[in-house]
Each structure stands twice: as C-alpha cells, then as structure tokens.
C-alpha cells in the first residue's frame, strides 16, 4: 500500500530570491517518473493543516529533489526546515510525462515550473532540449547542475525574450517531435497555441490547490475544453494541452 513515509531533509537552501531547493533522503526505494508529484506534510502537528503538493525534480539513490517558491505560510515554513529534520511524504502521485521513445522533446519551463522538466532532461538528456524562462538572470536557480538553456525577458543571461518566443523560433527547424511545458497559466496558454501552430503533440503540467492528492477530495479540479472538470492529481498533473482550458 502506498502511504506517507518519513524522509530526512538533507539539504534546504535558497537558490534564487524566494526559491528554495530541497533534498530529502527516503528510506523506501521508490521509482518516480518526471511529471509525478509528492504530497509533503510540512508539520506533524497538522499546522499547516494540509500537505503541500510539490513536483518531483529528481530521484537517485534514495535522494529526492524539489524546488519551490515561497508563496505562503506552508512553503515559508518548509523553506526554513533544517537538515536532519524529517518530513512525511506520500509519493509518487499522478501521471508522468511520456517517455521520448525516440522522439525529440522541446521542454519549456517557466520559473518554478522547472522541476518536472529538469527531471525529464536528467532522465532523457539526449532527447530533450530544455529552455528555462525567467524575468532576469537573478531568478535563475543556482543549482549544482544547470542542464537548461536560459532565457531571460531582459536579456541579462542567455537568450533574450519570453521562453515561448524563443521556442517559436526553434520550432521552425522541424527538429522537434513534441512539446512539454510547465509554468504559469498564461505561459501554458501560449504553449498551447505554439503546439497547435506547429502541429506537435503538446503536453502541459498543471498545478492546483490540493487537499488529498489522491483523487477523493475533488478540490484540484481544472476545467476541460469539454466543459467538464478533471482532477489535476489523478487525471494529471500532465495533460494534453488541447484537452484543458488555459
């Protein structure tokens, strides 16, 4: 049975203003895939009340990686947890990005939408071209490995422009077979248009407020183009861009 397991915080550091990189050591052997997420209990006292969903940024030899922005009390407390402290984690949850199977993937990350695509690039380095878009160089996370092409809106590092503008140019090369993206909704809406223009399979990873993470609370529903709602936790978090309202 899948259950909450205790993990030990082995690293927790600020890697850009407001952005924390956290590593957890898990006693259990798990086999997550890029795009899947974890529910993390910030405090055993249940204050904050709910666990927080975080996309898994990597996993190898019992070490899990996460990257998150401090947006409120829960992520604030999580960013202050010191090494050696334990957190309870339920994982892996949700559906991953599909394996490349010989295809070339253009992976577009916006800001803290980086984790699932960083992980994907790590797992499939030869098939994946990863662009990370941020406002300026100071927002690029200072991680040990930086397998991305930086794109800054102000041109202070890497390519200048929005990540979707750069992607539009790159897609003219016919080099890619699919687009995978994770980032803020306006960016994903633009990615959806890009994918339609290029006629390429386009997948987006969504985030949502969640209570349970396992499909029973119906709190994380996202509207579909069909007029129905889908649960981000169990139907996603990875969706076909054409399937969801963006």
């Amino acid at each position, binding site marked *: 049975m899948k259950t909450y397991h205790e993990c030990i915080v082995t690293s927790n550091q600020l890697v850009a203003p407001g952005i924390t990189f956290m590593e957890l050591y898990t006693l259990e052997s798990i086999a997550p895939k890029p795009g899947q997420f974890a529910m993390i209990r910030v405090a055993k006292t249940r204050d904050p*009340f709910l666990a927080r969903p975080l996309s898994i940024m990597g996993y190898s030899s019992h070490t899990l990686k996460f990257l998150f922005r401090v947006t409120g009390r829960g992520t604030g407390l999580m960013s202050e947890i010191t090494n050696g402290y334990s957190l309870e984690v339920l994982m892996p949850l949700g559906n991953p990005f599909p394996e490349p199977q010989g295809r070339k993937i253009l992976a577009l990350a916006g800001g803290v939408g980086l984790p699932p695509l960083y992980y994907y690039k790590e797992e499939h380095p030869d098939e994946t071209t990863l662009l990370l878009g941020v406002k300026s160089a100071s927002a690029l996370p200072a991680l040990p490995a930086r397998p991305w092409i930086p794109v800054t809106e102000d041109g202070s590092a890497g390519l200048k422009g929005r990540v979707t503008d750069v992607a539009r140019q790159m897609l003219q090369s016919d080099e890619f077979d699919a687009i995978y993206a994770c980032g803020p909704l306006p960016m994903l809406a633009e990615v959806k248009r890009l994918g339609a223009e290029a006629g390429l399979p386009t997948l987006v990873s969504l985030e949502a407020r969640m209570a349970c993470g396992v499909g*029973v609370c119906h709190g994380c529903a996202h509207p579909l183009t069909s007029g129905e709602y889908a649960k981000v936790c169990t139907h996603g978090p990875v969706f076909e861009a054409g399937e969801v309202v963006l």
Partner: protein
Amino acid sequence: MSADLTVDLGFVTLSNPVILASGTAGHADELAPYMDLSIPGAIITKGISLRPRTGNPAPRIWETSSGLINSIGLENPGIDVFLRSLPSLVSKASVVGVNIFGETVSEYADLARRLNEVDGISFIEVNVSCPNVEKGGEHFGHNPDLVREITHLCRQAAPSKGIVVKVPPIIGGMDVCEAALDSGADAITVSNTIPAADVDLSSGRMVPGTAGRGGLSGPAVFPITVNAVRQVRQAFPGAKILASGGAAGSKDVLKLIMAGADAVQIGTVTFLDPAAGERIVGELPELVERLGIDSMSAARGSAIPA
C-alpha cells in the same frame, strides 16, 4: 478478552464504529491503493444525483486553522455512471452506503428507487443539507416539512435499504432531526459541514468558490459536533446517530460515542492521510481496553451529564 467493537444500527451491524464519510472516500474504490477498504465499519460514497454535475470552479478548497472550507459543488458523474463503477467498491468494502441528493423532492425518490434494486448497498444516506450549492440541498434541510416529505418518499422507494438522513448543522432546534426520525429514517447523520468563508487577500475576494463561501470541516468543527451529538441524543434517546464532523483519530471516535453517537464518520482526515480509516480502526482495540470500555453500546452517551 478484547472489547466488542460491533455496532448494531438496526438495518445493518458494523464490525466497528468507524465509517468513511461521504465526499471524502470517492465514488468507488479510489482509496484502494492506500488502505484495506474492508477495515472500516462502512464506507459512504460521495453524493450522487440523477444527472451528472460538473461542480464549481476553483478555488474549491480553502485551508483554515485545523480545517478546510470546501465548495466542490456536488460534482458527480450521475447515477448511471456511478452504478457502473460501484461493484469495485462493493467487492472490497464491508458495508456500503450511498449518499444521494436531489434538486427536487421527486429526484430523491427516483434515486432511492434506483438504489433499492442494487445489491451490495446496505443503506442510503440522504443529503438534505449540503450548504455549498445555490440550487442544491440547502433549502430542503432548513425546512422540516420538506425533510419529512423527502424521508418518507425515500423510505417508501427503498424498502430494502436503510435510510439515513444527513442533517444540516444543529443550530438551535431539533425540528429537522425530528422530521427525519418521525417519517421513517433509520438513522440520522449529525451533521453536514458548517457554513463558512474566508477572504483571499491576494485577490480581495471571499473564498472558496464563486459564491465566496463553503462548508467547514476538519478538527476545527469537532467540538461543535460533540455538542450537537449530545443534544440530539438527549432529544431522541432511542435514535440511531452517526456523528460526522472533525473526528481525526481513535480518541475522537470514542469521544463522539461517549457523547451519544452510535457510529462515527471520519472525513477530512482522509485527505490528510488516505489510510486514516484503517489506522483509526487499528488503534481502537487498545484504546477501548485502556479506557475499560466493554462495548460500543455501553459507551454510547456515557459521558453525557445526568
């Protein structure tokens, strides 16, 4: 000798007093990857209506201190789709209850009639009190005459099933409980979530949902439930009462029984731990022994002042 955890509700005997509450355990066997679904005394499926309902836009949930305000909007696939997936739960659970709601009085009866024919369902929980849909059950639950009519129709439409009426929060009188119990309910669930709201400072709007309000659940409401159960028990000494509201552990389950409940629904705690139902049942024998409780029926109402 270990204590007797069984609970006789009249229409069914539960192996223990822990019931997974409607709206927190899915429409079928969604929790099967996380727990043994045969362990809770019963499982009540998420509210079902005649036709599918898409539910409310985000934000549907809002975290509070020790609780959760929800405005899910009674999202469900409708009775036809629901019945197709129900066997996956019936094959795994000990006892299954099905929560229903209608938009009209006759829809309640239609749903009860459909469910009466379905094997594997022990009881129907009639939601007259869901507070988070404009056109949903709110007005039924605030009107004892409508509650009487709905209960009576469901009773007639589903003679082979237990009828449990889930009432709105007990605030003031007992007229809705009385209406349900007088018109054929085998038991009542006390109670549904408590109307609540918050303000999202980032948007400047009230939350959750487009209406800016929802139903509060979780440990925040537990003491309110304890008091409500006690009130209902004192008013109706012979009634079968399922407590619902904030129980998050085995101690809470016993407290609610000692306050007058026959059985206890656990709900929001399942969001915090999908295996909560299994864990809480597992904790009960030792706790019951430590407290010197011989049986659930002996403990029932034992804490109420004379």
